[in-house]
């Protein structure tokens, strides 16, 4: 692989990388302090809570980390919206009907019903699914978290039942987010045979031309003004040689 070392293309700027890892850290703390409250009967949860210094400290950490999470998520949404609307940023993360088609094509490809995998743009459907999961789920968690933090204040404006409902939403959504991250995201960025032992893009911000051609062919074509359709057979044989 090293021989293609100079053939890397910048995919993410430093700010995106910092944002990702801040989000990861915040998420980890929230999961640790949150799920140990949800699964309070498990001894490992009790160990976490007691090690942190008790339930009140755990909740305090969870809530202030929640504020940090909101501080990452909300400015991101505002900045992205502003960028798309006024700075002509590429809305490449917006879900497109092609994404659904790509998903179906890929599943067919996995099953051997399709000859080639889906040809994706800058973000494939898996990445969009995760991104929007974090954004929409995050907003849901921020809103319900705020309700749970200030139940009496909430009850001034909303029916009392919204508080246990917010708790149900918060706790279920947390479990879902946790499972999606540990199963899907960790698979795609660590254990997937395509990236194993680790996907380096979120560390270096750069992607090899090789991987880009393979995973984001449409973006590659647009970027370099070439068509990859013809060279596909050649490329797969090259890949075989490498491995």
């Amino acid at each position, binding site marked *: 692989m090293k021989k293609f070392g100079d053939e890397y293309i910048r995919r993410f700027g430093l700010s995106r990388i910092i944002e990702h890892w801040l989000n990861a850290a915040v998420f980890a703390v929230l999961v640790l302090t949150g799920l140990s409250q949800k699964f309070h009967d498990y001894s490992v949860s009790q160990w976490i809570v007691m090690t942190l210094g008790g*339930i009140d400290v755990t909740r305090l950490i969870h809530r202030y980390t929640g504020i940090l999470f909101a501080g990452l998520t909300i400015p991101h949404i505002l900045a992205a919206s502003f960028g798309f609307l006024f700075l002509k940023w590429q809305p490449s993360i917006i879900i497109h009907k092609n994404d659904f088609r790509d998903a179906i094509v890929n599943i067919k490809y996995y099953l051997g019903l399709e000859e080639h995998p889906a040809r994706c743009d800058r973000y494939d459907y898996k990445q969009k699914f995760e991104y929007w999961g974090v954004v929409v789920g995050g907003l849901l968690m921020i809103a319900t978290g705020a309700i749970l933090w200030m*139940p009496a204040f909430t009850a001034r404006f909303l029916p009392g039942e919204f508080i246990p409902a917010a708790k149900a939403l918060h706790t279920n959504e947390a479990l879902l987010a946790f499972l999606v991250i540990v199963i899907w995201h960790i698979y795609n960025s660590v254990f997937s045979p395509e990236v194993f032992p680790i996907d380096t893009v979120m560390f270096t911000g750069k992607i090899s031309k090789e991987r880009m051609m393979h995973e984001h062919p449409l973006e590659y074509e647009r970027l370099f003004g070439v068509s990859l359709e013809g060279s596909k057979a050649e490329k797969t044989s090259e890949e075989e040689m490498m491995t």
Partner: protein
Amino acid sequence: MLFSYILGIILLVLAAFPLNSLSAESSISASDQACMMCHSQEQDLTFDGGEKLSLKVNIEDLGRSVHRIISCSDCHGFTADQHPKRTFKNRRQYTAYSAKVCTQCHVSHKTKIHEKLLSQSPKGTVCSDCHGSHSIQRARELSKGNHYCLNCHQRELSITFKTGEKQSIHINEAILNISVHKNLSCTDCHFGFSSEEHPLRAFRSKRDYSIAMSESCRRCHFDKYSRTLEGIHYNLLTHGNLNAPVCTDCHGAHSVYSGRKEKLANAKKCERCHPEVYKTYTQSVHGGALILEHNEDVPICSDCHKAHDMTDPRTTDFRNAVPQMCGNCHADKDLMAKYGLSTAVVETYLQDFHGVTLKFYKQQGKSVKPIAVCIDCHGIHDITKVNAPNAPMIKANLVKRCQKCHKDATANFPDSWVSHYKPSLKKAPLVYMVNFGYRIFIPFMIIGLILQIILHVWRYAVNR
């Protein structure tokens, strides 16, 4: 033939004669026989007050007495020739006077109590009160076994404490016999005392005596005693509150009975010192059932406060133990089924925010702040049915309780508590629907993603 006939008659005659009377008769000296000539007759002496004293002496009593070897005049000083007339105001004066003579022979006192009694005025107890006069016996022979002490203590005796308080030391045998301790002897509790030993002790007051005596319970009931050492009553006592109850205040002294037998009687013990609380309790759903329906399923004071190691109920530890106390009955399926009550109340509380917080506080060993437990909504001694008129669980009343901790709680706030119900379409439909949605969505999502991962790995392996 004739000889044996005569012998039979002789035997019959002998049998008709009580042997002991014969022997008594034979042991009587001539001078005593002179006394008995008159004193075997039925005759009375009348005192000034009209009180009568029989002058008849039962010859059989004399025969059984340890004093059968001495003569009448040895004690009475009279002989048949010298029989001066004396006058006494009353019978007691005569008795006291007569008893003085005992000390002529019995110069040393076996026990301190004799010394004390004899040093008191003759109006007090004299020798013959306990030992008898003509039928005089060693005290230990007077009665057998357990009730040796009653020789003296069945009499109307009393003691005076330093404070001037008087206390009867008369013991009613009937009361002893209904006690669970009826097979114990007096000295098992009143240790240091025996037929040989009766030390003198001086207590300042009756209360001091009771407190000191209650210490003897621990000789058998050490487990209970050691638990009382952790109790608030003992603590009060050691801090100088002598009114704090000791064993005998609740269990009785001579009529000891188990506290477990009858719940109402047990609760009434507490009433003596805690009348206000007891009154409130009688009006609660539990107390009402106990008193009006004689329902023994309900808790009494000691079920929550414990009997021996009751701790201060104002402490946080006590508060934190409340869900467990209520849970003792309210999580018992069989018991609650009798009254159509749900046992979900405990579980729903424990899984709720308050219950979880409480659980961790207990683990931490300290509470950061008071957490709502059962009693905060349902009341303490005044617990009512949840559907009773003006019950504290009615929303309007409940909001006041919420406001104790959630200062800014408004009228809507109590609805945030789904009142021990598992969310359903009827109760808390919003919560139910959220949970229901995720119960389908989470497995759908996770199974879908895992399938994709498996397919992806499989495709990769096939391509290689």
